[in-house]
């Protein structure tokens, strides 16, 4: 019963979540809406939408990377 690859895949997913979260926080913390005298709810929503777009792009990249890793790790098992 060798299921080390599945354990490894879970571990890789965990690492990717931690790194992905770090990237998300680092990238979105740079976003601030400037040029307004006061920062009201509307400006906060503009910033939120910008953050949302970055988050969606990162999630798409995350799924792409995960698919590549999955194909590489489970290539033999899936072929069987």
């Amino acid at each position, binding site marked *: *019963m*060798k*299921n080390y*690859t*599945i*354990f490894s*895949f*879970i*571990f890789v*997913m*965990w690492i990717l*979540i*931690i790194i992905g*979260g*770090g990237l*998300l*926080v*680092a990238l*979105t*913390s740079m976003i601030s809406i400037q040029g307004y005298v006061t920062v009201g709810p509307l400006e*906060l*929503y503009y910033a*939120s*939408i910008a*953050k*949302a777009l970055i*988050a969606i792009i990162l999630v798409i990249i995350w799924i792409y990377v*995960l*698919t590549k890793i*999955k194909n590489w790790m*489970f290539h033999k*098992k*899936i072929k*069987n």
Partner: protein
Amino acid sequence: MFEQIVPAILVSIVAFFSVYIITPFLIRALEKRNLRVKDYHRKGGAMIPRPGGPSILIGIIASELTLYAFFPTTAIITILITTSLAFVVGMIDDRKALGGWFKPLALAASAISIIFLGAYDTNLTFPLFGSFKIPALYLVLIIFIIPITGNTINSIDVLNGVVSGFMTIASFSLSASLFIIQNYEIAIASLPLGFVSLAFYKYHKFPSKIFPGDSGALTLGVMYGVIAILGHVEIVAAIALLPAVINSFLFLSSVKRIVEHRQIKNPTTVTSDFKLMATSDKDAPITLLRLILATGPMTEKQIVFVIFKLTLFSASLAIITAFMMGIKI
């Protein structure tokens, strides 16, 4: 903290024993009404009563109402409403098999109650790196989290005892994580989920005396998602669910569309000695079960044991992540 110990013990007892006592009555009632389905993996194809969702819901309602008597909070009301709505969705699906899109859409609708009751925070917290505020995205995220957790848990309900055992491990790790980050109120509210799953496992483990059905699996999965949102532990909750997430991920990347599990080919076959083996059918989807069986035929008990080991591993990672929440780089 001390004043919370008594309610915590009490809700755990109510959750466990209500399911433990009610389920045998439910089994008899379902048998009387001939609400049974065939267990294809069992020798002779035994007929098993389904669904066990009602006893799971009663356990959750009884324990959460007990907690409400001590701490009347919106969080408990949110858990009760959203979980009950998920149960209704599951019961409809148990009675009448509906299309692949029905469950995600109906569960997304049930998630709206979380937004209406305002029981959420728009910060998404990551380990080591802190949190970020996403007012616009978080509302969308709520609508996605509930159907994802519900369907992810439902998708691993493939063998005797898997979904209840899996939920026992995952939800206790979630409760432990909530205690670690000192969110005691939600931690106590999450305890019934683990104890209800544990009590149901007694009847669901191999050889099953009852199947939870969609009503049971969706109720457990949605309650898990609600607790993740209310406790601000979305990332920790996702990590504890990783084996089930992998199962859904493998399934979706091989099928490439959202489809009801009854409409797809079985990824496994049964050998003459009633072991399970991966099918050679190229059109069958790739699932966690199929990957586990890639090493050769196994008994149902052996497979369930492997899934529990994977769940314990991801639950450990979730608890480590909860500790990492307190560290900032």
